[in-house]
């Protein structure tokens, strides 16, 4: 966790106040990760859950994630739904229109591998990673809105390991099991330091 995540305490205890010391990487990653604007590339059923995630009950905005349909405004493309051969060039072009740095979330089984449309069909691209670099995969047909939110939190962990200097990028270490909103109660031994 970067120092900037504890800005409040740091400012008060710092010598004279008002000064904090952090690395440029930590500051850049912090600001990138905390306001991920999403390009909702919703094509099929998953788009319904994408809408549900950003509405009243699940309220995506509280994570700083806000859907913007214009690729030039956004940081992360959420590919939600089946991508067909007819649609793939459009998705690729939209990805190219997004400004760097940019990330891709593959939401749902269709975007991961074609899902239920893997076999026997002539028109479906089997996974969006055939032509886009995917950072986070969210399984489900369709995934619940909570899973999508968990996916965004995971993406933040990946972003936190990035660097503005390419040779300093660390490998992302993800913690398991999920810290998402779905919890099944504590299992024995859980909750202690791993």
């Amino acid at each position, binding site marked *: 966790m970067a120092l900037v995540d504890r800005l409040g305490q740091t400012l008060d205890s710092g010598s004279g106040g008002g000064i904090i010391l952090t690395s440029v990487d930590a500051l850049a990653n912090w600001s990138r990760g905390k306001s991920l604007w999403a390009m909702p*590339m*919703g*094509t*099929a*059923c998953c*788009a*319904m*859950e994408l*809408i*549900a995630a950003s*509405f*009243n*009950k699940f309220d995506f905005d509280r994570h700083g994630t806000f859907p913007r*349909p*214009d*690729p030039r405004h956004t940081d992360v493309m959420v590919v939600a*739904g*089946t991508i*067909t051969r*007819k*649609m793939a060039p*459009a*998705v690729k*072009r*939209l990805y190219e*229109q997004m400004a760097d740095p940019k990330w891709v979330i593959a939401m749902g089984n269709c975007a991961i591998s074609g899902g*239920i*449309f893997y*076999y*026997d*069909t*002539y*028109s*479906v691209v089997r996974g969006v990673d055939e032509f886009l670099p995917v950072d986070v995969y969210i399984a489900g*047909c*369709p995934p*619940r809105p909570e899973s999508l939110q968990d996916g965004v939190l995971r993406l933040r962990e990946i972003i936190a390991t990035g660097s503005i200097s390419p040779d300093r990028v660390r490998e992302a270490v993800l913690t398991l099991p999920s810290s998402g909103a779905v919890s099944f109660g504590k299992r024995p031994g859980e909750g202690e330091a791993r």
Partner: protein
Amino acid sequence: MSVEIESRECVVRGDGGVVEQLVVNVGPSHPSTHGVCRVIVHLDGEVVTKAEPVIGYLHRGIEKMAENRTYLQVVPLTDRLDYVGSMYANWAYCRALERLAGIRVPERAEYLRVIVCEMQRIASHMMSLGSAAADSGAATMFIYAFDQRERIIELFEELCGARLTYNYVRPGGVSFDVPEGWVETALAFCRTHRAALTEMDRLYFGNVIARDRLKGVGVLSAADAVAWGASGPVARGSGVNFDLRKHDPYSVYPRFDFDVPTGSNGDCYDRARVRLFECYESCRILEQAIAQMEPGPFRTEGLPRLLAPRPGDAYDHIESARGSLGVYLVADGTPRPYRMKVRSPAFCNLALLPMLAEGHMLSDLVVILGSLDPVFGEVDR
């Protein structure tokens, strides 16, 4: 890619005047096209002279896939057709199969099917009304409508474990009986939903800006609606009193007392208003169905896992939230369908777009598209 200019050229008008014609591409990824529709619009100034929808961006080949699945394995595929109202495609497919294989359905299953489909109608209309309103700038309406939709989704989740792709209606019945306390929650929903509908009516249809955006836009005459094969709220908004629940009664619908709301002007306002009133009627049907439903088996016991109906073909249809949704099945005596064809109401309704949009402003195009309520999983299949 959302909206971009394809070409700009001068054309000579019929009366000899020269106008600059813009060809603008809208979609296939555009927030107002309700999915992956692309419309190539020819503009004279801001007025649409020609709008040509390009569909097929979600064509997944479900009809071909069904030919290599057993009859039961096709049911989950039908979920993904109309993803705003999955129950309908489930039911239409099961009805065609039951007709083909001669399967009898217990009465309780019929009631459960009616109950879930009427709830699905409300959920689907809430999505349609909300997103159509948001297209014209009324985002508040979307939040009110989505709140209602989310309550139904929760009830469905309690019933069958899924939020969107239910796989609930199965050949010979339904997959689960209602859990304890579910019926009471559904009845309580009906009561609160009526109040919410009245509030939405005031909020949206009472708003002078919304009325101006909707009234007189995209007028569809009754004769055109029939000739173009329009169905559902699109046809009823034009005053065509055609509802399969009344005019080709299936299942237990003849036992319920309900009305079919129709419009008179055939504009976007009437189409949207018809959807709102249908939600009231759905609540009425829901309450009657729950009151009439009696305990009993909810699915036919002893059906083989590998259904192999005798060779022949059968068609059956139901009234979905978008119109008459039919499934045509051809059997050849093997455990797999020889051919499945889905008669999609959204496909037929969307064919009206070029006619309705002509002569209106570009900003009205999204209102008209929203009032046709296409779901592209069903349009493209």
